[in-house]
């Protein structure tokens, strides 16, 4: 089952690159959050309210947004160290009141001191792999495979994060990483937090918002079909995401070659 199947009221997606959620302050009484939204993010319909939902471990707090361009909110339900995620919903208040007109995927906030809560984790080690461009090594802790990029490639392009090089290896590496993790574990719960396996799956869930299958992975003998579809959806979204300067990996690769 995919997101498209579920969206029977044609809810629109609010693109995350048009929304900025920053945590300005944390103290014992509240967590202060600044919201900035581009007006292009909203559907131009009459009769709606805009809400900012915050979540952490079974708790939810909602704020009504009156000035999407620039507004601060104090959330007082959560502990000082809450690992918050947010969602913005544009909800109809007209004749079909309660219908969600548009919504974001989960938003992980940026901390005011400049550190995002999401740390980079697809960082390959550079080794001589002979004729292989890249490799995932599944020895040892299978939740933490080693990602390796051929040193000849990084030398040729000047860096492992050269856009043309990343466009070549990242989508395939993400596909193999997801498939490998899912084939080697029985369920999501077998993965400890902070492992590469847990983080890549969480990253895809949060960034791309595909409907996650409710079935277990099933492990090595047979990956559940729904999970294969989920992986495909993640890889397509990954390839199409505008990562830097509003450009996808492919856009950047073509641009760097012209």
């Amino acid at each position, binding site marked *: *089952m995919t997101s498209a199947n579920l969206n029977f009221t044609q*809810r629109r997606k609010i693109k995350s690159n048009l929304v900025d959620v920053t945590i300005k302050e944390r103290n014992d009484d509240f967590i202060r959050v600044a919201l900035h939204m581009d007006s292009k993010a909203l559907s131009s319909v009459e009769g709606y309210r805009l809400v900012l939902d915050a*979540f952490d471990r*079974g708790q939810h707090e909602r704020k009504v947004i009156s000035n999407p361009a620039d507004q601060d909110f104090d959330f007082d339900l959560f*502990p000082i160290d809450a690992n918050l995620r947010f969602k913005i919903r544009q909800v109809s208040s007209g004749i079909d009141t*309660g219908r969600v007109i548009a919504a974001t995927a989960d938003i992980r906030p940026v901390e005011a001191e400049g550190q995002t809560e999401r740390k980079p984790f697809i960082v390959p080690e550079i080794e001589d792999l002979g004729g292989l461009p890249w490799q995932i090594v599944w020895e040892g802790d299978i939740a933490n495979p080693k990602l390796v990029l051929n040193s000849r490639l990084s030398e040729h392009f000047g860096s492992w994060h050269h856009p043309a090089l990343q466009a070549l290896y990242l989508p395939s590496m993400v596909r193999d990483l997801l498939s490998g993790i899912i084939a080697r574990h029985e369920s999501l719960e077998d993965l*400890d937090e902070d492992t590469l396996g847990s983080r890549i799956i969480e990253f895809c869930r949060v960034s791309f918002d595909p*409907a996650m299958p409710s079935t277990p992975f099933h492990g090595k003998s047979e990956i559940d079909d729904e999970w294969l579809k989920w992986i495909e959806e993640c890889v397509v979204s990954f390839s199409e995401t505008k990562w830097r300067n509003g450009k996808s990996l492919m856009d950047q690769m073509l641009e760097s070659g012209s």
Partner: protein
Amino acid sequence: MKNEIPVMRFTDKGITEVRLTIESLRKEAHTKKGSQGTPISREEASALSALAKRADLVEAVPEFGEIDTATRFENRLAMGEYLAKTISAGTADDDKGLWTWISMIYLDQLLAPRSDGTLLLASEYRYIPDKSRLRYYRHLAKMAWTIFRQYENRARLFLSIPCHVHSDFVEQSQKDDVRSNPNIIDLCLELFYDEDNAILKKGVGASVKREGSFRRLVSIVSPQLYMNFDLYEMSADRIDQILPIEFKQWKTA
């Protein structure tokens, strides 16, 4: 007969001692992956529990007064209610030493009894809080406290089970979209809870493939509804009206 003593917490050294003791008991018994726990004798359980009385491993927590170690709880709901009254400050949420100590003083109620007289010692995170996103809700005592504080009497939906049981219902309901929405909790009480017998209705915990099951509501139906409707602003009755017909079966059950 009551046995009220001051509330304590394990120091870091004390938590380590509890952890090592649990590891040692589980290692010696070669616990199989996927099993419900490791059988231990009542003497071993008493020795583990006795760590809570060792002055070199614990320290006082003056803000919480006294706790009755002799209380026997009818179920996790009763445990949650008592702990919510006794441990009243939200700051306790992050106190690993406190929750480990509470687990040890009520340990005999947190171990599943077996027919051969032994008790099942479960994974460490049932007794020592683990902040991992995948494990934090598996602490038996703390989660009873957390859920009761959040939902008070409505917590009966989750906690009408023996103190040592971490039900599949609790496990499946940890998704933020479910546990954080009181309207969904009200709906689930109406659909799935047998008020006369104070237990969940038979068949509620069936697999996701079974029409009308709780798992199906949590994993398939509610994400679909959330995508299209603002369930946080809809009453349980209103949500009930847009539920698929498969859930009507519980109205007569």
